[in-house]
């Protein structure tokens, strides 16, 4: 059920494609939230801007103050807006990742992630749109997944809700213990010792935290994994890209970045979209000095989730190669030795232990399959320990965060000998948060558990 009184936000342009998109905010706090994140280029304040005007500036990371994206912000005051509420639309330019970060910042400032069709729902409830449109929102509300989501993602999400149900079940057990001792004080129920309860709470909150952490990986599914191919000129960056693409023939789009001179190519490996930031073409065409070419190429490392460091195996390492090696230290990177079709001068032994090394020939396709497997295993190394449970949805992540925060508070309360009813209060809150992901928990569920576990009744 949608609340109508709070402020909601969402990315309102299609997910997955297009580097330009809009983060939309609606509700009483819209302006206030945007104001706190926005720095106008000319020092203007959003509250001073006339309604239905656009203003240019930056969205700033609330923690740290670094700019997230260069944006155009439209301020639209109630009631002449789509939802008849105050609205702010942030036009992001920097591609998917910054857009995502803008949304997260907006949520952190107090907006709630909008549900499917919720802007339209509000538009209708506030008398802005007609019946047929409103009824169309019902289809949206009933639709479980976004159409852009891929099969692999759905499967993972399905497994995720199983996982959450399982965690919920365990949380409910803890809850039942605490509740039973509150509601049946004179019974000889085998109330688990406080230490056991504490242990359970801690391990649950740890698992919830880990699960919330997989959102980072889940993000790869939605937005693609940002991969940078770096290396000095002529090591075969273009050929590698072509080799990766050729096997999949899955180019989605090709778009010049607006804020960086980097080409982005999309390919897909087993359902995982890869957004490859290709620094090859441009600079080599511009015939820049070699050092400058390397420097620019290395810039692409900054926004990358994974770096493919490419070297020419048929020649000894050059000074520029060493520069590349220095830059990938402490990064998630794979060392790729190209030109295996030629006699090899280096074998990659020196990299072993620090980076996985894959030997390929971009020319004849040798080693490309192995490289793809290595890419996958690098990215999902962590997730294998979560048995493949991945949080892909920001709403789910936020609910998980709230759940473990409450659990941590419950643990603290227990350790500080706060009354059990306080522990129970925090546990209920945690349970409700998990319930938001997969469906509500009723008091009947808890009582059911109490009665099935404890011998009650004097």
């Amino acid at each position, binding site marked *: 059920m949608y609340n109508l009184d709070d402020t909601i936000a969402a990315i309102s342009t299609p997910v997955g494609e297009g580097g330009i998109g809009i983060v939309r905010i609606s509700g009483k706090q819209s302006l206030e939230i945007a104001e706190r994140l926005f720095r106008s280029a000319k020092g203007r304040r959003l509250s001073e801007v006339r309604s239905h005007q656009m203003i240019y500036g930056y969205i700033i990371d609330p923690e740290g103050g670094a700019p997230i994206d260069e944006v155009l912000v439209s301020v639209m005051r109630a009631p002449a807006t789509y939802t008849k509420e105050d609205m702010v639309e942030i036009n992001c330019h920097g591609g998917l990742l910054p857009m995502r970060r803008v949304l997260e910042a907006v949520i952190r400032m107090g907006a709630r992630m909008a549900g499917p069709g919720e802007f339209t729902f509000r538009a*209708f409830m506030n008398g802005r749109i007609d019946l047929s449109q409103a009824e169309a929102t019902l289809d949206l509300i009933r639709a479980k997944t976004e159409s852009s989501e891929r099969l692999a993602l759905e499967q993972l999400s399905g497994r995720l809700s199983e996982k959450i149900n399982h965690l919920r079940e365990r949380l409910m057990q803890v809850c039942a213990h605490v509740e039973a001792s509150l509601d049946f004080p004179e019974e000889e129920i085998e109330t688990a010792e406080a230490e056991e309860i504490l242990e359970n709470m801690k391990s649950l909150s740890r698992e919830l935290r880990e699960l919330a952490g997989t959102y980072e990986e889940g993000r790869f599914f939605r937005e693609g994994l940002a991969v940078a191919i770096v290396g000095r000129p002529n090591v075969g960056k273009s050929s590698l890209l072509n080799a990766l693409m050729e096997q999949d023939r899955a180019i989605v789009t090709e778009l010049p970045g607006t804020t960086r001179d980097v080409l982005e190519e999309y390919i897909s490996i087993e359902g995982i979209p890869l957004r490859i930031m290709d620094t090859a073409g441009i600079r080599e065409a511009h015939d820049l000095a070699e050092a400058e070419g390397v420097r620019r190429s290395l810039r692409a490392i900054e926004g990358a989730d994974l770096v493919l460091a490419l070297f020419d195996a048929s020649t000894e390492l050059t000074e520029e190669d060493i520069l590349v090696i220095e830059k990938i230290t402490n990064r998630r990177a794979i060392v790729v030795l190209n030109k295996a079709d030629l006699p090899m001068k280096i074998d990659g032994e020196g990299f072993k232990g620090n980076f996985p090394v894959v030997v390929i020939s971009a020319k004849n396709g040798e080693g490309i399959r192995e490289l793809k497997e290595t890419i996958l295993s690098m990215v999902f190394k962590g997730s294998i320990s979560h048995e493949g449970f991945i949080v892909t949805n920001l709403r789910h992540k936020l609910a998980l965060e709230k759940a473990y925060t409450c659990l941590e508070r419950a643990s603290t309360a227990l350790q500080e000998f706060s009354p059990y009813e*306080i522990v129970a209060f925090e546990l209920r809150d945690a349970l409700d948060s998990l319930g938001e992901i997969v469906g509500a928990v009723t008091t009947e569920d808890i009582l059911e558990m109490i009665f099935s576990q404890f011998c009650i009744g004097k």
Partner: protein
Amino acid sequence: MYKDSEFDVIVIGAGHAGCEAALATARLGLQTCLFAINLDTIAQMSCNPAIGGLAKGHLVREIDALGGEMARVADRAGIQFRILNRSKGPAVWSLRAQADRLLYKLAMREVLEEQENLVIKQALVDEVVVKDSKVQGVMTSLGVFYRARAVIVTTGTFLRGLIHIGLESFPAGRAGEFPAVNLSDSLKRLGLKMGRLKTGTPPRIDSKTIDFSRTAEQWGDDPPQPFSYSTESITNPQLPCYITYTNERTHRIILDNLDRSPLYSGRIKGIGPRYCPSIEDKVVRFSERPRHQVFLEPEGLQTKEFYANGISTSLPYDVQVRLVRSIPGLEEAEIMRPGYAIEYDFVYPTQLRHTLETKLVEGLFLAGQINGTSGYEEAAAQGLVAGVNAAMKLLGREPLILRRHEAYIGVLIDDLVTKGTTEPYRMFTSRAEYRLLLRHDNADMRLRERGYRIGLVSEEQYRAFRKKKETLELELRRLEKETVAPEKVNPVLESSNTTTVKEHISLVQLLRRPEISYDVIKSISPSPYAVEGELEKLVEIEVKYSGYIRRQIDLIEKMKRFENTRIPENFPYERIAGLSREVVSKLREVNPVTIAQASRIPGVTPAAITALMIALKKKKYLEREYTV
């Protein structure tokens, strides 16, 4: 047919629900007649001789705050008072009292008989007379008709009551009393859907034959705290209870005789309460438990009869004797009355409004076990609400509907009319989502005003309450404003093992510290106001819990819009696009009054609620189109 006197309100059944209902209507000035099958068992405690306990104690306090009678009678009859759950937080503290069974019913009967506008009659009501879906009155088994504008049915376990002891069974309302058979058929003819429940009671034992030296004595609190806000002190002598345990031998006796148990042979069809299982149920379901607790509770000051709490059973008499005698302290025990199980009819409570009026018949109200609940306190609470609402209806005034965040009574009734029940429903603190607000200590703060406006709280009681409330507010403000200097407060902080301060600190900040009690605050800076007794605790809790209280209030605020969005009666749910047939049938059954209530119906999904909100909006939209 003989037509006797006419009344405004008739109450059928003089148990805990019936007494509160009749008192409420009579006190509100309506001519009321209370019918009982047997006048000697008015306000009978059919099961354990105790009032209150977890969540039930809260109900008793709320009844008192609203101007009901149960708390005052319990104070007059109480022979042991104990606050349960002291260590687990003030919201789950709950008062429980052992009550003298005889004193209790005499005290209640005295109140009833003294009450103006109230007539008490012994009669068996056979029929609720209804014309054009409006209640007309009742017909007794002697063929006498009594006209009334409202009828409140509070029949407890009497509707087609059937007692089981072993494989023997016989019709009865309670052991030794007639059941009400025809009345049940009459309600069915009105179109009310009915089901069958079961409950049970343990054997009663002659204390001359109990060896108390083999049991553990348990005394109540000294001094005892009363239930009622208007009771000064408890005057009865206080008695202990005794604790003993079943053992492997007891369990063997039970297991060897399950074939003679009406429960396990399938003779009992009604559904029993899971939270109050019979001893045979406990032994079978929790076979790993080597023993179960048995509380031996005195039935009164003037009697040797003891109640064996914890071994409710419907096993045959000879098995009851052997199982009792296998328990330490009871080796020589003589059973005075055997335990038994009783099956009875109840009305599915989703057929009621929040006022406890049936949706089918105007002017017909139901309260107590007939609505599927168990427990004296649950019954009394409903009796009070049904009585008040019958009166409000006849007087043309606003009904009394308590919300879930206002009272356990609100939770109780909302649960019943929204979720229904399939087993005897008992109140638990875990049923209340706003538990930290619905405390035992603040029942008057929550409800006294309501009781006064209804007209059940006297001017004198109300003045006392106003004074208490003002003092509370003054004191809270003082704690907020007044600060103390480090040199004054640090010695106290050191001795309380909490960190010292460098600057002035407000009293409220001090009191928020877990180590600092209100007593400490008093020693630092005594209050100029009359903060004493219960009020001290109230001040302390309000301050210490303010953060949690705020969080709960935020939740209530969030729900407000849904609580305030009303759904017209008999809304055409089947015409809403996108609702499954299952959801439609649930919505039709309950006929929720608000969106919030609809959302609490089991099986009604958030998506369905959104669809419903759109449909409601659409309805308004269309109506506007037509009226323009």
